[in-house]
């Protein structure tokens, strides 16, 4: 077990270093960092001095190592467009994105699992057919279209919900801000969260349905029925429990892509999160922010992957044995 954890840890660090090197190449070789930092009228002598001061004359491996070391200390340099430290910019916007991702994940789970169970148990019913049709539409409609549709319905036509922003936020601790404690904040998060959750919800629904159908064919289900257990017990005690392992994996792995997909949602709803910041940096070729965001997402994915792997080993006894044997 410990050998397994250590192996996974090393693999994760390897991925992070690889992504870090890509980020370094982006940072160093796309556009000239000095040109981006100084004005047009800066004399050549000052440029040379700045170049020396930034260490841009050192050999490339030295620069790469320094970049990685700085990144490990969350120092990604100064944004070209905002002239502020990148880590501060990202830090200030992180709570908005994480809060949105969290609410969206909960929504997709709460709606997706029951819908999946229902469509698996009552395959021929009209409601199940409706759910499946909805899931196809959910997969086909681009995220931003769903967002626009919601805005048109609930903000323009009905006027129930605000169409942009985060509402009033409350400070918790030194840097975390939350909109979940104010009325306007709660109202503001509904539409962005639904937009973000819809795709995940269809994914979870389809997965639960497929797993459930698979499990219901298994021998132990037949045996449970033969023992005279009620259908309810068979479905929820035996079947659902066994479908949840793969569901946990997928939900965990999707958490990272929810954060990445929030780029689109944040743009539609002018949500002041990291995704918006990243998009601005792509539009303005602000490489330090792009590099930092890339590393942040990579870090998130690696951590989630690691946790999911470990959870898997903890939940599934067969895997534990296999690991011990290996």
């Amino acid at each position: 077990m410990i050998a397994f954890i250590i192996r996974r840890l090393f693999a994760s660090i390897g991925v992070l270093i690889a992504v870090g090197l890509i980020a370094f190449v982006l940072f160093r070789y796309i556009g000239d960092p000095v040109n981006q930092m100084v004005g047009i009228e800066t004399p050549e002598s000052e440029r040379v001095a700045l170049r020396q001061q930034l260490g841009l004359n050192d050999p490339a491996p030295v620069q790469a190592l320094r970049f990685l070391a700085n990144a490990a200390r969350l120092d990604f340099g100064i944004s070209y467009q905002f002239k502020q430290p990148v880590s501060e910019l990202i830090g200030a916007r992180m709570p908005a994105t994480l809060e949105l991702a969290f609410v969206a994940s909960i929504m997709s789970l709460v709606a997706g699992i029951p819908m999946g169970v229902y469509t698996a148990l009552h395959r021929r019913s009209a409601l199940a057919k409706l759910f499946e049709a909805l899931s196809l539409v959910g997969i086909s409609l681009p995220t931003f279209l769903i967002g626009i549709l919601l805005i048109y319905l609930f903000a323009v036509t009905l006027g129930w919900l605000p169409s942009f922003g985060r509402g009033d936020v409350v400070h918790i601790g030194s840097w975390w801000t939350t909109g979940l404690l104010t009325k306007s904040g709660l109202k503001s998060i509904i539409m962005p969260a639904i937009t973000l959750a819809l795709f995940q919800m269809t994914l979870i629904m389809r997965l639960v349905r497929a797993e459930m159908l698979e499990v219901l064919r298994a021998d132990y289900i037949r045996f449970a029925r033969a023992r005279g257990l009620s259908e309810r017990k068979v479905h929820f005690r035996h079947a659902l429990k066994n479908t949840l392992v793969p569901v946990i994996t997928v939900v965990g792995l999707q958490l990272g892509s929810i954060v990445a997909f929030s780029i689109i949602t944040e743009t539609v709803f002018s949500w002041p999160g990291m995704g918006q910041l990243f998009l601005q940096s792509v539009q303005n070729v602000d490489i330090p922010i792009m590099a930092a965001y890339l590393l942040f997402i990579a870090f998130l994915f690696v951590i989630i992957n690691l946790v999911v792997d470990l959870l898997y080993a903890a939940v599934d006894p067969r895997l534990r044995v296999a690991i011990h044997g290996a």
Partner: protein
Amino acid sequence: MSEITVELPKSEPTSRSFLGRVKDSDLLASFLSSKVTVVAGALTLIFFLAAVFAPLIAPTNPFDPASNFLIDSLNPPRFVTGGDPRFLLGTDDQGRDLWSAILYGLRVSLLIGVFGVLLGGAIGITLGLIAGYAGGRIDSIIMRIADVQLTFPAILIALLVDGVVQALLKGQNREQTAFGILVISIGLSFWVQYARTVRGSTLVEKNRDYVQAARLIGLSPARILARHILPNVMGPVLVIATINLALAIITEATLSFLGVGLPPTQPSLGTLIRIGQNFLFSGEWWIVTFPSITLAALVLAVNLLGDWLRDALNPRLK
């Protein structure tokens, strides 16, 4: 060298025409057996035809600034009271006929989608063939890269590639480079699935007798891969390509909607929706509505077609 490939025993005489074979095939039968699939197929065909013949169908050329007049801007559709009979679906803020803009936008969206899928397919198939055939170190390097990329959502990769290529082409005219940048970003974000599938099939195929025979007569690995293995691994690739076409269209639309795709002077469907979103609150609903419906219908039709193709070509479901 096709005589070396293993051909299935034919029960029918080979002289029958191509059309005759299509008429009797299982594929056509399964296509016609589902109404939804037929509708989706017809819709896809209409979209492609509309895109190809857009210059002939469209009343005006929306890309030509000389044919648009600002005085015509924000006209409602013809069938609404106050609509101008010249503009079937109304006009946008530039005075462009929306019906023409949608036709041309469809053309741009489909072109980028198809080229993006072709590029992604070319990269993925090549790397997959090499990885599967060479094995060993090359295989593990290619597949590691694929694994790492697969953990990132395609839209993020596309955005990153877009930003990087933009930075490399700095100073170039956005209008001339946007098309190429989009194709590259879509191609580079969708190659992994092809590579994994092709690698898997190549691993199976490379131990077959016909490959051994081709090797024995001294053919080069490149030739064996291209002429002998490739034709036998193309089935699943076609399915992936169809499903990826829908994804590529969505990706292009999303990038254009986010403002890093096609500029408003040569709008794709995504750009039109981006423009239309600004007028959602002022009551000009048609600018966002019609391009959105077109995009949604296009993606849904291609998706349904892909679903059918996947089931029809899956031997386990027969």
